[in-house]
């Protein structure tokens, strides 16, 4: 669970405590219904508060997951006029209503802008990335039906539900199989729906667990805290566009947003996802979004930014493959090598205004090299601490090259456990000190 002490999280937590002491959920309802906090993660607040205890002590559910899987049917019981409601049930009801209405709005917009299928599966990451809800949806006119079919605890990859498949009944197994076999990847995180059509966007990277970790940190440390007044931002290597879409939608102060990717498909995918998730009409001030297809060059955009985010390729190449990269496809370049890390860190002074911040994803596979490239006059913060977050290494472009895997294991610390490989994510804030 990623929990970074954001003020909005504290407000939500206080609202649950108030429900317990006051016996009503007015504050909880008010905070969750505020349009500006539509990316708020109420599940994280409940997990942090503790379930089932306090206000939830009378809940018929022993665990939050049990409720999540039965929430749609349970909701009907709550709506029965003859039913009596304890305040804990109302807290859960408000959260579920807000959650499902956000999902339906996102699906409706994505159906218009991004041509998502009539029915299919959604992977919804909640609770500070501690849960991946696998949900089935079906569009009905301008709305949709939703049903949670499985939950992955502490997902270590976006598609980390192999374990879940073994533990579920045949019907759920079939549902999960259908979602997996679909040509569409729909990932939801904090009010953003990213759609990747695997046929059309075949060379678009992610969304991977790395991107989700960065999105969670941005949510808690930038969007929810508002400590950094962020008017200009850029994402370098936008891929599917999750981070660009999150900044466009959830960063209240943003005015100018740039996203660049070497792949045309990635930029096109980013455009669809930004416009599907964006709440542009309701923004108090105008936002300009500039999308650039082409290699990143520090001097390309004559601007200094408040915020730069980058989930770069961080997988070191074995010396024998160094010469190959210039001749292979964009997708390969989006995966291997560490040259973008070097380019970005060397241009921090050109990219950031004084006080501006770069959020960069690093991996244990190339952490030493990354840290050594950070300019001395910059402040460095590691939101996940020194330990980082261990995740599954599931980059197929690498896994299909045994000599590359061997190099990573022997020289870069890639860990093998059974049939799986693991590495550790180390997101890093690099701040250009003012003056």
């Amino acid at each position: 669970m990623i929990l970074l002490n954001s003020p909005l999280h504290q407000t939500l937590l206080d609202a649950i405590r108030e429900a317990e002491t006051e016996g009503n959920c007015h504050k909880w309802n008010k905070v969750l219904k505020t349009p500006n906090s539509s990316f708020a993660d109420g599940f994280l607040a409940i997990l942090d508060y503790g379930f089932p205890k306090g206000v939830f002590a009378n809940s018929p559910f022993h665990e939050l997951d049990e409720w999540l899987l039965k929430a749609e049917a349970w909701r009907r019981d709550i709506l029965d006029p003859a039913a009596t409601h304890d305040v804990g049930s109302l807290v859960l009801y408000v959260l579920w209503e807000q959650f499902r209405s956000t999902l339906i709005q996102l699906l409706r917009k994505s159906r218009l802008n991004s041509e998502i299928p009539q029915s299919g599966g959604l992977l919804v990451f909640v609770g500070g990335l501690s849960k991946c809800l696998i949900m089935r949806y079906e569009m009905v006119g301008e709305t949709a039906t939703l049903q949670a079919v499985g939950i992955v605890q502490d997902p270590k990859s976006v598609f980390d539900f192999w374990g879940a498949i073994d533990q579920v009944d045949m019907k759920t197994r079939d549902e999960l199989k259908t979602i997996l076999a679909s040509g569409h990847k729909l990932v939801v995180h904090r009010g953003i729906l990213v759609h990747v059509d695997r046929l059309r966007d075949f060379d678009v990277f992610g969304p991977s667990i790395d991107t989700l970790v960065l999105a969670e940190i941005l949510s808690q440390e930038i969007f929810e805290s508002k400590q950094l007044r962020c008017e200009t931002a850029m994402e370098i290597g936008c891929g599917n566009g999750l981070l660009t879409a999150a900044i466009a939608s959830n960063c209240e102060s943003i005015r100018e947003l740039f996203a660049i990717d070497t792949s045309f498909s990635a930029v096109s995918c980013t455009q669809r996802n930004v416009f599907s998730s964006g709440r542009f009409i309701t923004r108090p001030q105008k936002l300009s979004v500039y999308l650039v297809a082409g290699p990143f060059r520090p001097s390309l955009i004559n601007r200094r930014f408040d915020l730069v985010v980058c989930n770069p390729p961080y997988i070191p190449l074995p010396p024998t493959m160094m010469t190959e990269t210039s001749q292979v496809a964009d997708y390969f370049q989006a995966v291997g090598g560490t040259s973008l890390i070097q380019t970005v860190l060397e241009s921090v002074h050109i990219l950031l205004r004084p006080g501006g911040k770069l959020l960069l994803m690093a991996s244990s596979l190339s952490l030493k090299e990354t840290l050594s490239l950070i300019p001395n006059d910059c402040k460095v913060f590691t939101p996940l601490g020194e330990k980082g977050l261990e995740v599954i290494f599931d980059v197929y472009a690498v896994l299909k090259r045994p000599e590359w895997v061997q190099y990573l294991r022997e020289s870069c610390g890639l860990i093998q456990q059974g049939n799986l490989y693991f590495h550790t994510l180390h997101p890093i804030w690099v701040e250009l000190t003012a003056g």
Partner: protein
Amino acid sequence: MEKTVILRFRDLVTEEGGTIRDHASLLEKYGEVWWGWWMRPYEIPPRPLFQELSNRIQKQGGLIGYLFDTGSTRLYSAHISRILMAPLENGIPTPEPERSPSYYHRGRYPAWFLLRSLKEVNFLDLKFIYDSFPTMPELQGTLAQLQGKRVSSLEQMRQIDVTLWVVQTEQ
């Protein structure tokens, strides 16, 4: 005599007769259809009434309610098999989108009635006695003289500015 509800509606988002036609067509397809009850901003949802009706539905398997089209002054009877009500003031979206007309899909309503039948009835064949106006408790005083009196005409009902009338009728 039994207590029941008459719900006000008008073809505001459909062509004339469209509200009933859309519901009837889903009723024919699924055997049931959801009717969204809207109320005016100055009305309040009558929880005790809905609780009472809901308990009766559970005991009897349903009850007959009425739908009053104030635009065409037509009356319909409906077999109500379930009532759902928003526990808070935000309203609730359609409980089953496929079993509710599409114009409901983006809205939230204070209550939903699941209908198993729907047919036009002649007001003159029925006997309604005014019971109460729970969506506007402040009207109770003004309209006290109507309580216990027979509803004289649909026009008389129309002029009482509520979206839900509670009446006594012979079921």
